[in-house]
């Protein structure tokens, strides 16, 4: 780059490899007056180079210099890549804090209403679906049961065992001091059956299957698969959600039962090794302390948790907007929301059954 006689001479390659240097070179040149920019010796130019030319024009707009000796090729490139004639992009929605606050409250109410509608829809079609399998794919309940239930056996079993061990160990030392060793059985049995079993299973299922439900439905939405189902006169809720609803309603109580038993076994291990209890005395104590009511509360909780997980997963799935990015967002939101909902629901249950 050279500057003399009111003319700026550009030369060689003006491309993405040279523009950075050219710009800094240009900033060092003191320009008092300029009439021409000479492109005669420019060998090649690409879109970065044209952007540099645009930038030159902008910086020198007070002088409005003329471009001279522009070869046809170079001129064609400039025509193609120049940003000058581009139309203004559409303005993005403007953000006003009050408008945003109002909108978010409004959105929240809107969402809540939509979620209620969806729940009713899902409940209705799931009930109909028990008697009439039309509108579902053959074998989909079994397939979903495997995904939601069978595949989760390992992780839920392992975590319940660890949870049982931890609970028992935590209390073992205190109980021993008072010679109340046998009460570890009461403690483990009640807490696993009523609280820990259902809640921990629900949290794992929310993480595994709730997210899978949300992401599957969201993907189907953005790839227009949901629309395609509608066009085939197939109700997407019936086709996609109902099999999951049935599968999770069956699997959840079974998973919770398993988790509870394994958790109690964890307690038993601590009882035998650390508290000198025998298997028989531990077992008798567990059977004696548990009531039918405890078991029923635990199981009914598990069913409610299951429903909440399906409904929240579907809700975020159907609500997705945008492309692949939206799917990720929907999945994350659904997991956070369903774990939150499970814990709140659990608290409500505790309150109700406290009495």
């Amino acid at each position: 780059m050279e500057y003399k006689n009111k003319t700026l001479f550009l030369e060689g390659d003006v491309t993405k490899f040279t523009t950075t240097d050219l710009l800094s070179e240009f900033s060092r040149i003191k320009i008092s007056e300029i009439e021409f920019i000479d492109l005669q010796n420019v060998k090649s130019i690409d879109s970065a180079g044209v952007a540099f030319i645009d930038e030159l024009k902008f910086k020198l707009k007070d002088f409005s210099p003329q471009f001279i000796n522009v070869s046809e090729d170079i001129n064609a490139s400039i025509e193609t890549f120049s940003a000058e004639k581009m139309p203004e992009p559409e303005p993005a929605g403007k953000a006003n804090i009050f408008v945003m606050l109002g909108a978010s409250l409004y959105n929240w109410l809107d969402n809540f209403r939509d979620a209620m509608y969806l729940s009713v829809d899902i409940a209705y079609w799931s009930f109909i679906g028990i008697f009439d399998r039309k509108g579902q794919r053959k074998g989909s309940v079994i397939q979903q049961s495997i995904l939601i239930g069978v595949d989760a056996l390992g992780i839920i079993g392992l975590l319940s065992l660890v949870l049982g061990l931890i609970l028992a160990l935590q209390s073992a030392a205190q109980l021993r001091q008072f010679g109340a060793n046998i009460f570890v059985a009461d403690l483990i049995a009640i807490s696993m059956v009523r609280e820990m079993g259902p809640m921990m299973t629900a949290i794992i299922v929310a993480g595994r299957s709730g997210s899978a439900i949300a992401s599957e439905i969201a993907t189907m939405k953005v790839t227009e698969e949901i629309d395609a189902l509608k066009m085939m006169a197939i109700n997407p809720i019936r086709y996609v959600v109902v099999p999951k609803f049935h599968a999770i309603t069956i699997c959840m109580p079974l998973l919770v039962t398993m988790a509870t038993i394994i958790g109690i076994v964890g307690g038993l291990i601590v009882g035998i090794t650390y508290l000198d209890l025998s298997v028989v005395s531990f077992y008798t104590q567990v059977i004696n302390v548990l009531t039918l009511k405890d078991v029923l509360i635990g199981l009914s909780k598990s069913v409610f948790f299951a429903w909440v997980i399906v409904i929240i997963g579907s809700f975020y799935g159907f609500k997705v907007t945008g492309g692949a990015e939206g799917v990720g967002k929907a999945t994350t939101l659904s997991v956070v929301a369903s774990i939150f909902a499970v814990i709140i629901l659990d608290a409500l249950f505790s309150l109700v059954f406290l009495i």
Partner: protein
Amino acid sequence: MREPIIKVENLVAKYDDKVILDGVNVEFFPQEVTVILGGSGCGKTTLIKNILRLFEPAEGSVTIFGKETTKMDEDEFNKILEKIGMLFQNGALLNSVSIFDNVSIPLEQHTNLPVEIIEKIIEVKLNLVNLGHAIRLFPSELSGGMKKRAALARAIALDPPLLFCDEPSAGLDPLTSASLDELILKLKKQLKMTIIIVTHELASIHRIADRIIFLDKGRVLFQGTLQEAKVSGITEVTTFFEVGKFE
């Protein structure tokens, strides 16, 4: 005057506040191939989706098979949908099941045909779109053009009297595209289908179009027969037929 099979009156379509279609009046006649034309992003897909209630029209009315549909309840509209096939612009195959299962969905859901017959139909429909070999594959194992064709097979699984195709030949080579046109003509002739197609390919339009609907800036610039279009005197329309490009 013949009765139109679909009549769209004064349709206004919006996404949020952005008006895409601004008072569209169009008619589609039975046993004709109508081509919807217009630059990319002008609202062709939007028009189809509003007719089929995938989006709710902001204003206007749509009459299909003689019944006003925009206010119809879902069960009644589903009855109409059973007589309509739709090929989406991106195919929209169900990715979790095989091509065979994709084509079988409408057959299983809306007929009581025995399995053997359903299997035959699926094979025939896939062969019609030259995909007989891909019957056991999954959508993720197909190329873009193959997906389109598989989706077409699904759309015509039930021999619907009314077929919508959103750019069926985009992404296909000229030979496949020509054989697709032949198929469309066969469907029209032998199954007496009414077919509504979005396409930009001049060669294809000349082969198949009975009528043209030309959209521009949210309005109908022209509608009429192919011959009328060429002599319409509307610059955008005649230019398109001369050079095959939108202004």
